[in-house]
Structures are given as structure tokens and as C-alpha cells.
């Protein structure tokens, strides 16, 4: 956690695969993740369509440029979204305290190959989100797996980029 807290900025490519109970085959999307300490996080999806989700502090901006869609909302207003954001942001920031505000945190492995198991503290959030597993090595996130209460599983594989 302390090592993660030392990272000021990072950029990574991601591939996200969603296995939904409603669909027979998984949905795949890809793009770029950007992080700037302590609280800026951005997810730019390039395929299958352009989309941008940026979080800065408490504000979340959702944009779909092709359709001119742009929405800003407060994370305070959406506890389930806040949970998801904090899982990634809290880990990237190496902020164990922030993580513990939203999750009971389990840690296993070694500094080179670790896994955080995050179970939401809030019962209301738990109705939607069962568990988030974050795998990493050193200061890099490698995989974020989100298991929703209805059985949907989303797996995001992350490849750090230095550019």
C-alpha cells in the first residue's frame, strides 16, 4: 500500500470482459485508464464505442462524444457507484483507510503478486455488488474482477503503459 501511495501518475491499457446473466456470450470493450494522485481517475473506452468516465474528487463525468452525451453527477448521490470508484481509486492511491470506509479488505500474496479482496461494508451496496478482487504486482494493477449480486462478472485486465 505504501508503495502504491508513491505513484503520482499512471497510464494503462485495459480490456474489459463482461459475462452477463442475460446474455450467452461475453461483451468485450477496450481502452485506456489514467490515474493522477490522489483523486483523479479516468477510463477512456475506445471500442466498441467511444466513452469517457472521469472522476475527480466527488464529481463523476460521463461522456459519449459521438452522441453529445455529457453528464456530471456527485458520488455522494450514488453510493453503489462510489463503491466501485473507490475500489480502483483507493487501491491506486494506496489509501487503505479510504478502502476500509467502503469495504472489508482482505490481502494475500506477496508484494510482487498480491490480491485484494474487497467486500462492501454497506448492506445496500452489497445488494448490488458482491465482491471486488484486485490483483496486482508491485505498484501495477493487473486485473480487477467485479462480481455483482445477480451473478454478472466483469473482468478488467490491465496492461501498464509508460507512454
Amino acid at each position, binding site marked *: 500500500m505504501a508503495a502504491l501511495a508513491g505513484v503520482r501518475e499512471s497510464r494503462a491499457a485495459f480490456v474489459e470482459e463482461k459475462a452477463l446473466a442475460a446474455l450467452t456470450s461475453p461483451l468485450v470493450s477496450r481502452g485506456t485508464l489514467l490515474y493522477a494522485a490522489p483523486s483523479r481517475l479516468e477510463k477512456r473506452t475506445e471500442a466498441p464505442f467511444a466513452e469517457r468516465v472521469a472522476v475527480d474528487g466527488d464529481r463523476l463525468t460521463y461522456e459519449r462524444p459521438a452522441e453529445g452525451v455529457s453528464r456530471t453527477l456527485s458520488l455522494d*448521490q450514488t453510493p453503489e457507484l462510489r463503491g466501485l470508484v473507490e475500489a480502483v481509486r483507493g487501491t491506486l492511491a494506496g489509501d487503505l483507510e479510504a478502502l476500509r470506509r467502503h469495504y472489508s479488505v482482505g490481502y494475500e500474496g506477496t508484494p510482487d503478486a498480491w490480491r485484494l479482496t474487497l467486500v462492501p461494508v454497506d448492506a445496500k451496496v452489497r445488494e448490488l455488488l458482491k465482491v471486488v478482487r484486485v490483483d496486482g504486482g508491485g505498484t501495477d494493477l493487473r486485473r480487477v474482477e467485479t462480481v455483482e449480486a445477480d451473478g454478472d462478472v466483469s473482468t478488467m485486465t490491465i496492461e501498464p503503459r509508460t507512454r
Partner: protein
Amino acid sequence: VSRIPRGLLPVLATLLLLALGWTVSLRQVVQVRADMADLLPPGGTPAARLLARELRSGPASSLLIVALEGAEPEHLARVSRALADGMRRSGRFGLVANGAEGLDEGEREFLFRKRYLLSPATTPDAFARERLRSGVERVLRDLSGSAGPLAERYGLADPTGAFMALVSGWAGGSRVEQREGVWFAEGGGRALLLARTGAAGSTWRPAARRWTPCARRSAGRTRTERRG
């Protein structure tokens, strides 16, 4: 009292009595009414009658918008929460909303059920084959994106997009901001609170009068908390 000459006292007393009597009789003669609908001409057409009826007993007559101002946003937000809690607990209001809670499950469910009646996206060709096909394709695409859970919940059962068109139509035109978890007018100087009085009819003035002291109390309380 000691400075008033003795002889004047009976005169003053009489005057006082007269004044009291005057107010009492005035009250009996002049009825104070807070009904905006009285200002309308008697309805000749069905539309005018509908308007008059709505003003008397529709939402327009029972809705209050409360603006709280004159302090830092975080303080106003605390007052807004305390006031909303107090108003809810009083049981005198059918609805108290300050943005702290979104639509509840029941309200969302209701709107979703009535989506085709309410939505601007419900057009005669909304259920045509090609339209439905492109609708399903859009839902599939949305499912893969970050708003996937939303698409899953509301899109799969609604490929025409009626519900999302309904909700985004409301959100799109809104200039109300969310700050510190409650509604603020644009610019952040005023916290906003919406309330519907429990009783039908034009009861907004008495309700506002009753609640002003309560708002002051809430403000006072949070102020003391802040100091402490």
C-alpha cells in the same frame, strides 16, 4: 406608565378597547384568503375550469419551494437536511425532497411501468421492426459500456428506450446542482427544498408561516453545532 398623567388613563383605556374591537370586527368583515385561484375569472371553457381546479387542488396549490441562503454551502446543506428531517417527521407533508435521496424504488418502478404513456419516445413507429432491431443493438452496445448496469436494468425490457428518454428529458433541462449531497440553485448560493403540503387546497401560506420558525430553529441548531 408613571409618566402618563392620571387623567389620561381612562382615555387611553377606552382607545385601546376601541382599537381591539376594531380589529375583531375587521377580522369578521374582511376574510383573509390565500387562494390564488380567486384571482382567476370564472371558468367559461373546460380548459379554464381545469386550470382553476388544478390551482385549487392540484400540485400547483400544495407545492412549496424553500430556498435557504446566507451561509456557506456546507452549512446550508446541513440546514437543508435538518429541515427536511423535521418536516418529514411532522407528518404534515406528503412529500419532502431536498435531493439527498433520489427517486425511491417504488417511484422508479412506477415510472418504469408507465414509461410508454409518459415518454416522448413513444411514437407510432416506436414498435416497428427496424426500430426495435436498432433499439436492441443499442442496448447491447450500452451493456458493454460503463453505464452497463443501467442498460441491464432498464434497457433489456425497454428496447424502445422510452424510460431513458423520459428520465434524461427531465435531467437535461434541470439547472439544479447537487452540492454536499443536496439540491442547490445554479451558482451554489441557495439550497433548495421542495415540499408538498399534506392537505389539498391552497394551504401554502399557512404552511410557509408554520415552517419559517422551524427553519430558523434548524439553522440555529446547526450553527451552534458548528461553533461547538
